[in-house]
């Protein structure tokens, strides 16, 4: 009994920071309709800034003042980000905003590294609250009790602000109808900035308040991200009580999980989430999200046509060059091009979902890594030959995609995006925690191609055939009746349904198909590297693919391929810089704001301008 209560108390204490961060995210979303993917980064900043203040300010007063100051400083950093990065993209399609916030993640990661260095910091303990108290014989840290007592005050202050002040009234009004609030004379720009300040300050507070329990490290941003998403999805986007209840639920569950199911603590919260979503698709306290206001606006889309004569010639010529490459190139070049080709297939499969299906999947690494792990596990445990493994890998990845897709497709818009990311994290956590089977952090090694394909040149040809074949298949599917049905489902679900297209069905099949294609890429990847580690399933990997598709241009079919080649090629070079994330982050933000058509799209526009290519509407 004592242990039970102690665990509940630990869970409640852990819920404190989670609640603050999640309510900040929820608040920002409510008003600005932007899912701030960089929210974990503000949490991380809160921890670092709080740590630094605690080094200077002495005593109990200094400790608590540091936490408040951390909130304030992070809030101000939030204002800077809002003004520089988000203001220019408020009117842009959702995807652009999400990508812009990734850019912010990368920039903050490297700036944190720059300022505080790579070492983890152990959080200082709260003066006056260092000891433990025995409750029914079980030790409970005093600081935990302080947190439990503190959280209701934060929640109350927030509630008071939202329901009782003019600012709160304006915030709630703007959540419903921003334009009307503006027409009544309220400067929304500052309202947005204010909300962003508050949301980021809450994240910063959360980061600082957990210091004595968790310290500060550079992985905090991604680590908390899926937990906040899960909390917000379970609680209901935009609901403060929802955020609190869900934070408590998840935290308590985690504490019990550590004791009774140590292998699957991370998986547990996803299971709860899925159960909640099946019964309440918009969370415990959430309401149906009004879609559409923000959908895929922007320029009307060009009709995507099968490649013309000249385009075909160029592609054929490129393939011809690639076929001849082994004669002139050394093995370094061959390996590099193999990597690029694999990555291109991965990116193209995401592009298929995103560009054609309008399905903003944020967890595509699950299928790439899933295929890779499927192949690696088959080889390790069943001695499966490469040929069979390369067939089974896409099947496994496709099946995973269909299972995940089945749940995710119940939702749309940002919920969908957050869910796909959460599922990818689920897979990652399974692989990471189930070390006996998957090798955990040590990965799986010694997975080599069959003898006949083990030469660099042969494997190069094999990869080319599969990757180019996969990309052609994706392209071909885009122009098939299935591709048209998928696009129809993206553009207008109702219209598509009325012409007899079962949209959810079509989207699920597309999800499975894209997953399988990513699985081929993953399978090839394992055999080309000879090993696989959990980081191929990480959020960062999914982001790589998204960024590539984005940089390449969402609306151009060549987008995934061009972007993939550009990034993978540049990465080899760019990662030699210590602060390459900073550069990449700035580049992404720059592209979002200045060249929102991506590389391929922008090149095309330039080409049209100087008359090199014919405009589609004249052709």
């Amino acid at each position: 009994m004592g242990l039970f209560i102690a665990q509940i108390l630990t869970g409640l204490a852990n819920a404190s920071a989670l609640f603050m961060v999640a309510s900040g995210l929820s608040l920002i979303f409510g008003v600005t309709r932007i899912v701030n993917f960089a929210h974990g980064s503000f949490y991380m900043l809160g921890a670092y800034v709080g740590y630094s203040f605690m080094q200077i300010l002495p005593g109990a007063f200094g400790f608590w003042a540091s936490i408040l100051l951390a909130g304030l400083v992070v809030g101000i950093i939030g204002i800077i980000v809002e003004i520089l990065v988000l203001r220019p993209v408020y009117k842009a399609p959702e995807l652009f905003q999400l990508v812009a916030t990734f850019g912010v993640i990368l920039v903050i990661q490297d700036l944190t590294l720059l300022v505080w260095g790579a070492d983890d910091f152990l959080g200082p303990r709260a003066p006056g609250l260092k000891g433990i108290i025995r409750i029914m014989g079980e030790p409970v840290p005093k600081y935990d009790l302080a947190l439990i007592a503190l959280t209701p005050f934060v929640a109350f202050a927030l509630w008071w602000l939202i329901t009782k002040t003019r600012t709160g009234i304006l915030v709630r009004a703007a959540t419903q109808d921003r334009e009307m609030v503006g027409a009544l004379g309220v400067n929304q720009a500052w309202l947005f900035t204010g909300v962003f300040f508050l949301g980021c300050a809450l994240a910063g507070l959360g980061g600082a308040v957990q210091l004595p329990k968790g310290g500060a490290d550079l992985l905090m941003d991604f680590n908390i991200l899926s937990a906040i998403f899960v909390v917000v999805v379970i609680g209901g986007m935009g609901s403060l009580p929802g955020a609190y209840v869900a934070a408590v639920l998840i935290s308590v569950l985690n504490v019990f999980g550590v004791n009774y199911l140590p292998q699957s603590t991370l998986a547990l919260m996803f299971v709860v989430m899925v159960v909640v979503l099946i019964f309440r698709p918009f969370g415990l306290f959430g309401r149906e999200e009004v879609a559409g206001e923000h959908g895929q606006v922007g320029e009307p889309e060009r009709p995507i046509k099968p490649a013309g004569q000249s385009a075909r010639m160029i592609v054929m010529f490129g393939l011809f060059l690639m076929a001849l490459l082994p004669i002139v190139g050394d093995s370094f070049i061959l390996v590099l091009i193999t990597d690029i080709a694999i990555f291109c297939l991965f990116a193209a499969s995401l592009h298929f979902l995103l560009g054609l299906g309008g399905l903003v999947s944020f967890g595509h690494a699950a299928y790439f890594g899933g295929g890779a792990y499927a192949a690696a596990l088959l080889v390790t445990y069943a001695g499966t030959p490469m040929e069979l493994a390369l067939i089974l890998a896409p099947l496994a990845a496709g099946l995973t995609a269909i299972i995940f897709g089945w749940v995710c497709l119940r939702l749309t818009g940002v919920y969908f995006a957050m869910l796909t990311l959460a599922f990818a994290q689920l897979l990652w956590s399974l692989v990471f925690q189930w070390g006996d089977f998957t090798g955990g952090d040590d990965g799986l090694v010694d997975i080599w191609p069959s003898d006949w394909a083990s030469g660099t040149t042969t494997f190069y040809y094999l990869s080319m055939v599969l990757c180019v074949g996969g990309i052609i298949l994706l392209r071909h599917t885009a122009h098939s009746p299935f591709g048209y049905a998928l696009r129809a489902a993206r553009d207008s679900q109702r219209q598509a349904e009325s012409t007899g297209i079962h949209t959810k069905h079509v989207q699920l099949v597309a999800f499975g198909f894209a997953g399988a294609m990513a699985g081929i890429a993953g399978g090839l990847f394992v055999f080309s590297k000879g090993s696989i580690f959990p980081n191929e399933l990480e959020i960062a990997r999914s982001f790589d693919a998204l960024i590539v598709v984005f940089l390449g241009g969402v609306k151009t079919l060549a987008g995934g391929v061009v972007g993939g080649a550009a990034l993978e090629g540049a990465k080899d070079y760019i990662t030699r810089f210590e602060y390459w994330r900073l550069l990449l982050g700035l580049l992404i933000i720059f592209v979002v704001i200045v060249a929102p058509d991506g590389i391929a799209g922008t090149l095309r526009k330039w080409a049209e301008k100087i008359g090199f290519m014919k405009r589609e509407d004249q052709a």
Partner: protein
Amino acid sequence: MLEIKGINSFYGKAHVLRDLSFDVERGQVVALLGRNGAGKTTTMKSVMQLVVPESGSVTFQGVEITRMAPHKVAKMGLGYVPEERRIFTDLTVMENLEVGRQPARAQAVTWNEDMLFDMFPNLAERRTNRGKELSGGEQQMLTIARTLMGNPSLILLDEPSEGIAPVIVEEMARVILKLKTEGLTVLLSEQNLHFAQAVADRVVIVESGSAKYQGTMAELNANPEIRDTYLSV
């Protein structure tokens, strides 16, 4: 007081307002008449800069407001009551009024909640009810009251008589005349000619996004053929 000169407004590629021009003088009630889809709402939005005209100009109290941010237009003393009402359904009546609150302004009545509750007694009883709990007529009253909280000197009313019970339409007409006696200038859009006849001093008839006729109400009444050409009665 309000001069609209040759504005052209678009939704994407659809050209909706074509060289539309007319003036509204201080203290008048002007009715913008026209069929469904004639461009009345677009005119209102183009004045508020919720739709930004691509050419032409809108001048309010001698200041050009074209391309100004809508909240700045509102701050200059233009009050907008949209056709779809757009009250904040999750907010109470009092909170809805709070959103509209702006500082007092010279040359315009300064409204407060009590004055508005005098004018709209129904709302007084419902001050703690949420917007979604109000009837259509009450919602219409609330949108007007909310806009008045901003102490406008000119108020844009988009189809105030649409979709409400006949008794309330009469009350609405009284409200508009009351606003006029308080010194407000009113530009309203209407399809209901009888309603316009009851309140308006002047009329502007729009058709396909241009002003096809302008004159006093009395002149229009004396020219039934114009009425028959442009208005479906």
